């Protein structure tokens, strides 16, 4: 009976068909061709950007980072990056402690991760108004710079 109504309303009751795939594939390939950045180059760039940000901002999970080309029309393109803070430094530290503790099962770890991610999103917004974590981060960066010099 659903098929009957679909037919009467001109709906296609079967799967979407290959034209949707064609459209998605074309949009993707043309987007990259228009800005002359191959998808593979985008992946490399994303990895580098993530690496740089991770150097300054603790708790960035590369899998949650989304960097993409956004096109409103043919001549207006922008790179849009969404980089969620998945954990605060304190949580990351606490977690690396718990990693050492082998009694925690894999399943439990996954759950803990997703839970702390939700917390971190909220915390990120509130933390911004508190100067302390910023100071903490810049001290870390200085430390790293010093070690680099020693290495050289």
């Amino acid at each position, binding site marked *: 009976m659903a098929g009957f109504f679909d037919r*009467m309303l*001109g709906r296609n009751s079967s799967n979407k068909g290959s034209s949707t795939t064609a459209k998605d594939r*074309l949009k993707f390939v043309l987007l990259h061709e228009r800005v002359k950045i191959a998808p593979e180059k985008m992946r490399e760039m994303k990895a580098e950007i993530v690496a740089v940000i991770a150097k300054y901002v603790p708790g960035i999970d590369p899998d949650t980072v989304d960097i993409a080309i956004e096109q409103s029309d043919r001549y207006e393109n922008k790179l849009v990056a969404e980089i969620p803070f998945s954990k605060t430094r304190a949580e990351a530290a606490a977690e690396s402690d718990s990693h050492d503790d082998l009694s925690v099962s894999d399943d439990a770890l996954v759950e803990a991760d997703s839970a702390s991610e939700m917390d971190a999103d909220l915390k990120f917004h509130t933390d911004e108004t508190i100067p302390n974590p910023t100071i903490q981060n810049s001290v870390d960066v200085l430390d790293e710079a010093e070690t680099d010099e020693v290495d050289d």
Partner: protein
Amino acid sequence: MGAKVITITSGKGGVGKTTTTANLGVALARLGKKTVVIDADIGLRNLDVVMGLENRIVYDLVDVVEGRCRLRQAMIKHKQFPDLYLIPAAQTRDKTSVSPADMIHITDKLRSDFDFIIIDSPAGIERGFRNAVAPADEVLIVTNPEVSAVRDADRIVGLLEAEHKNPGKLILNRLKPAMVKKGEMLSADDVVDILALEIIGIVPEDDHVIPASNSGIPVTLNENSHAGVAFRNIARRLTGEDVALMDLETNSGFFQRLAKFFGGR
């Protein structure tokens, strides 16, 4: 100011550039417009056969460029439509025999005597394409509802931009409404959405097209052909007339489906 120069191009081969050029030439002449069509596909002459003028060629485009004949001597007058002329491509030469400047020079000499100059571009994006596009006031990009043709059309848009040309308008050729309805072919809306171009015509796939080429009588002269009507509509739009896009799914309305359903088909 005189003639408008319109170049028909596509990037990909086999999408229907020559068929489109022949049909727009004939359709414009039928509308009383003085029209000359130029085959810019040097070495692969074809517009002449599609128009049924292959037996009347004496001189060609390269002969004009190299000064072996006057421009008028290379222009073949169509017997049925005295307002329509063809300048054929050379058969034995290659694209480097003509330069973009030559094309501009030739069309400039024709402008004052004609309403429309239509140039059939070769496939590809090299010299032949640049020759064909150089004198264009307007570029019509022919594509098919198919990934490779649409992708090439987008390349053409990019190249037109690089040549500081207007973005071009789209002719979507060989659309199969039944396949679109099944979701197995890109629709006109899909293609317009992907390419972000103005569309000037949708030409349905039509079994009348090949017999028309076979006999050298462009399909737009066949009153029973949907493709023929579509080409006529494009010609009218080129003259500035406001013609609505063809409804290719005339039997897709609710009541038609209802009738079909109870009609037991």
